[in-house]
């Protein structure tokens, strides 16, 4: 699509900003296994960055390092100008990094509404004594956040399952609720670990639409892991390729598609 046509269709040019997250020379070892070997890449404001790679390449480990579950032995992480040798989950959360998991990590005993409300925990300030009274400021705060959460519920089109315990929901909807919980944190950087795993085409299309809308409407920077190459090539601005803990590619989808090393990693090559 040429440019005037794109503008006529109402889509506006995406402005990709400065570097938001800079991962510098990260090395992560588990005993003798080197999960991540001297990995550096960055995520720029407002872009959709995909991390791809064969199984066991270290993609999920990379996300775990970014939000502080794993502590790398070497390297440093710069997020919004703060340099750290390792993150902590609650610091990552308070700085605006939200995350979904490969195998859905929802709170199974709680309803959809409560799950998404729990994403607002960091924003709610009243202590437990106020809440016990459920009166005045605490009540007001609860209702304000409820109104915000309802917007997310509308956005994700899950109004009908608002009060359903998430344990009873089908997988595709659980993934959507998990995205909702991450969105409720109003993150600046959203890490999505295989948001479309195990979905049929229709559900994948829905999920892509939500991801693009989040990126477009809320201006959220997104870093996602995905195995469906069609999806990756379609929605991402940049792709980072990992293989056996090493970075073997970094660039636009087209550059990566034509990178010989990436092709070798995916198709296999004889080592002789």
């Amino acid at each position: 699509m040429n440019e005037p046509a794109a503008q006529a269709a109402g889509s506006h040019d995406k402005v990709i900003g400065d570097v938001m997250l800079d991962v510098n020379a990260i090395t992560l070892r588990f005993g003798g296994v080197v999960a991540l070997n001297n990995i550096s890449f960055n995520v720029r404001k407002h872009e959709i960055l995909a991390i791809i790679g064969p199984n066991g390449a270290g993609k999920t480990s990379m996300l775990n390092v970014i939000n502080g579950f794993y502590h790398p032995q070497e390297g440093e992480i710069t997020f919004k100008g703060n340099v750290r040798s390792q993150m902590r989950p609650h610091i990552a959360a308070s700085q605006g990094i939200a995350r979904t998991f490969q195998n859905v990590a929802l709170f199974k005993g709680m309803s959809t509404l409560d799950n998404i409300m729990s994403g607002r925990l960091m924003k709610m300030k009243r202590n437990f004594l106020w809440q016990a009274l459920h009166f005045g400021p605490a009540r007001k705060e609860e209702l304000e956040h409820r109104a915000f959460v309802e917007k997310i519920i509308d956005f994700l089109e899950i109004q009908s399952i608002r009060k359903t315990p998430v344990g009873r929901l089908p997988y595709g909807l659980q993934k959507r609720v998990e995205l909702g919980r991450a969105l409720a944190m109003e993150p600046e950087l959203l890490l999505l670990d295989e948001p479309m795993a195990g979905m049929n085409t229709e559900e994948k299309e829905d999920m892509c639409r939500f991801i693009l809308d989040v990126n477009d409407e809320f201006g959220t920077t997104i870093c996602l892991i995905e195995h469906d190459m069609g999806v990756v090539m379609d929605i991402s601005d940049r792709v980072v390729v990992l293989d056996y803990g090493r970075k073997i590619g970094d660039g636009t989808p087209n550059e990566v598609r034509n990178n010989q090393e990436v092709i070798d990693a995916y198709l296999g090559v004889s080592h002789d």
Partner: protein
Amino acid sequence: MFYRESGQFKSSYAKDQAIFPIRQDQIAIVLILAVAFLVVPWFVNDYWSKSVLQPFLVFSIAAIGLNILVGYCGQISLGTGGFMAVGAYASYKIMTSFPDMPIVLVIILSGFCAAGVGILFGLPSLRIKGFYLAVATLASQFFLIWMFNKVPWFHNYTMSQITVPPREFLGVTVTSSSAGPAAQYLFCLGFVVVGAWLAKNLVRGRTGRSWMAIRDMDIAAELIGIRPLQTKLLAFAISSFYIGISGALIFCVYLGTVEASEAFDINQSFLVLFMIIIGGLGSILGSFLGAGFMILMPIVLKNIMVGSFGMAAVTAKHIEISLMGVLIVFFLIVEPHGFARLWQILKEKLRLWPFPY
């Protein structure tokens, strides 16, 4: 036919988030409270007050407390008896040290003492989970009871038994044997109603959600910014606060005279744990249903066997214990999530009854 919400529209989030959003429930709770506060005190006699209502009420508070910890926050505790003893002995020490202090304040302060001890014994919960935590809390049970028996300061250097001095609330004696059955019943009821209301508010708000998040998926909980240690310790503190208040009420109102190793032994820990398992983990209503079942069922069974069949009391006691075991197993097989879940299913059925589609 009568229990349904069709036609009851909520036009604000406040109404939707009410504890009892359905009108029929609102009417029911008002009726129950009216009967409990206005009707029962006129008819209650010594037997009903001492043997039925008071144990039900005080154990309901303990069950709410333990449910906060086990049902909502997912931390197993077998130290309930020990924390009850902390509440009881704290109230005794406070009453004897400050004779002029109002009894309500004494009981609330005892709750705070238990909360402090609860935080202390909750510290291991950051590192250990599940059965291992159960064993750690079991240690607190044995240690606390041993301490109250062996350290004479706690029972004011007398025999290990402690007896409550008479105290008045609003001009009416509520503690010691000179108190009337209605006054004692109302005193406990007041604590139960306020306690249950505060607990319900806590568990449906931010605090409750962070507890349940820790219970259901602690990794994801950390990710949304929940600090596990603070959250777990808060659950231990509030749970022990309730259990401490229950212990103080057991000592001051229900029993009047206690000995730590008898009134608050390991059996009480299990009794309260059974209450919440049978009543429903993670449900305030379940705490009441469980306490009701575990307290009232033995009395009903005994009355049927001794009163109707004329059995010897000793034989009846043995049969009662085995029957209770059978009933517990039966109800757990029928509904592993407890009476609260049964009630929920019943409500869902009632919505369609008598015209299911």
